[in-house]
């Protein structure tokens, strides 16, 4: 196996849960989260095999993968046709880990859907900072925005999630 493939294999084992959770928070359902994670790692793989060894060594994997995943989600949103939602509950999420009991999964699904309902700029900022727990610097790097903008968007996004959307009424 080539060196880049070894790096990739370790990357998958270390980050697949995190990238899946990221996709879940951004899209609001497990099926799309799986697709986002698959596309993210496929892009990562294709990039890695072209990188020289020193670039692979210097890679900040966590931030890099988040950046790729962010692009995947944005491109999907752009090309997306209106989705027909299956009403018979046939969403293929039967394979979750045993530690997640049914109640908790229902709560998580509800929260994920609420987060996914935020306007993109608030959603991305909130998810990077509070779901994925990146620092403001890392989040700003992944988003390609100034730290101040990210802070403002996180703040505003949290307010929207609390249903506390009264910024304007305070004047």
């Amino acid at each position, binding site marked *: *196996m080539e060196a880049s*493939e070894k790096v*990739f*294999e370790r990357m*998958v*084992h270390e980050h*697949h*849960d*995190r990238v*899946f*959770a*990221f996709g*879940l*928070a951004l899209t609001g359902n*497990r099926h799309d989260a*799986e697709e986002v*994670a*698959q596309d993210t*790692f*496929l892009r990562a*793989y*294709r990039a890695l095999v072209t990188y020289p060894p020193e670039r692979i060594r210097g890679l900040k994997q966590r931030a890099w993968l988040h950046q790729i995943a962010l692009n995947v989600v944005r491109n999907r949103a752009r090309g997306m046709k209106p989705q027909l939602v299956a009403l018979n509950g046939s969403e293929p*999420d039967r*394979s*979750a*880990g045993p*530690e*997640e009991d049914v109640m908790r999964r229902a*709560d*998580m699904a509800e*929260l*994920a859907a609420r*987060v996914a309902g935020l306007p993109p700029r608030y959603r991305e900022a*909130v*998810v990077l900072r*509070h*779901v*994925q*727990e990146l620092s403001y610097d890392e989040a700003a790097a992944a988003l390609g925005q100034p730290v101040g903008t990210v802070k403002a968007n996180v703040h505003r996004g*949290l307010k929207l*999630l*609390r249903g506390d959307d009264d910024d304007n009424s305070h004047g």
Partner: protein
Amino acid sequence: MTTLTDDLKRLGAVKAPRGFADRLLAHVGMADSYARFNTVLGPVYVAWNRNGVSAAARMASAVEFEAWFRKDVGRQLALAGTPADLAEKITDELHGRRRLRFDLRGLTPFEQAVLRKTLEIPRGEVRPYGWIAREIGHPAAVRAVGTALANNPIPYFIPCHRVVRTDGKIGNYGGGGPEAKRSILTMEGVQLKRLEDFAQHGYRYEGVRTTRVFCFPTCYHGKVANERNIVRFHDAAEARAAGYRPCKHCRPAAA
């Protein structure tokens, strides 16, 4: 205030579905996918990747199959859904219609040559180990052919059960022992009793009086002849002396 950020943090701790890491590796071609298929032989585990089918085995459980594959083939393995088109191809393959590609990358060139040659034996026919050895240009390597077939990672699909001993005895079978070999060959239409009786009397080849051609006893071209026009030979020299030439289809002897 804290509960919302705590909940968000918990959302970030959600785990991917079981086996997801292996599926990701399969997605980029670094692991093989596998599924259980119901076939005419009963349930069979089949592994594949973008190069083709890479392994098959009748095993009691997925755990057993995964352990065997990781050890013997040496790649990662991810449980996949059963793709409808693959299921169809597998069914066709087991009924003698060749549609699958095979991934034999991990094998030696000799082993690959043996298995590729084995793929040429039609359903309902058998060939001796020595025939494979001669056809691939290693006439003395009969024993090595036996070993390569015993280690066939894709039994049933690469029909190593169609290779039998030169004395007409059925020989060993990696895909489930001599009994499994007998039942698969019988299912494919080989008349084992006739074949064994033939060999026990010291015969190797059958000739057809009207065409003056001699064949292996299961060869399609010999089977269509009327039984009373069939003559039996102990070896190629005897057949040639009687004015018969070797069949161009089953190639019973070097021309």
